């Protein structure tokens, strides 16, 4: 019986390990660094933005709420940019042509990055679309917002204000 109990323990451990390994960015942990190609050419690296409050928005053109919040995000960016705030829009589509053509009609001035192989979305463990990650001035993930419904932009603004003050 003792060996059976040991076997049970070993099996439980072995089978639960993959679940533990899949743990992604969580509030309080350091934000996984990335460097992605931007819409205006060039590259944006998260580590270079240390000292700024960074809001990372994962979006796609096939995602309705993402399209809905895009103009509001642009407003947030222009409002809080002077306080040491950067908004990064990470497009998760394998083909970024749709995003480029859709953005032509949008008043978006913040950097749009192309995560064509979904590596960054994977490293942040994006669990819904859109997902918005708030990174503080020390490079720590502070808050992850899943989805968007009208009114959520007020939550975004509250979060930005509290992080900018730190």
């Amino acid at each position, binding site marked *: 019986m003792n060996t*059976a109990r040991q*076997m*049970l323990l070993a*099996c*439980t451990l072995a*089978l*639960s390990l*993959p*679940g533990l390994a*899949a743990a992604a960015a969580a509030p309080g942990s350091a934000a996984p660094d990335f460097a992605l190609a931007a819409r205006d050419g060039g590259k944006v690296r998260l580590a270079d933005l240390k000292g700024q409050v960074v809001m990372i928005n*994962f979006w*796609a053109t*096939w*995602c309705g709420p993402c399209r809905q919040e895009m103009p509001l995000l642009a407003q947030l960016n222009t409002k809080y940019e002077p306080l040491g705030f950067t908004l990064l829009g990470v497009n*998760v*589509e*394998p083909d970024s042509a749709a995003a480029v053509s859709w953005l032509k009609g949008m008043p978006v001035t913040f950097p749009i990055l192309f995560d064509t192989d*979904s590596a960054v*979305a*994977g490293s942040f463990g*994006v*669990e*819904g*679309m859109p*997902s918005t990650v708030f990174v503080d001035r020390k490079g720590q993930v502070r808050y992850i917002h899943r989805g968007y419904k009208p009114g959520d932009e007020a939550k975004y603004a509250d979060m930005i204000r509290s992080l900018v003050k730190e």
Partner: protein
Amino acid sequence: MYKAIRLVLLLSLTAGATGCANVEPWVKPYERQYFADIVMSAERDPVAAAYLNHVFEAREGARGATGSHGGGCGCN
């Protein structure tokens, strides 16, 4: 012999109990564009499919619940 059976039972039980805990959607939320791929559609050609559904309904003497339009009221 009993010991072996018990071990196998125990192993399968543990596998069953813990394996389910890690099942997630295989397509991640940020990969959902793959659902819109043409290979994901059950009917590639809607016109041909509608015709075949019509033939099927005529042959079976019943309609509805095949994905074609009409609610099964017999009035269309």
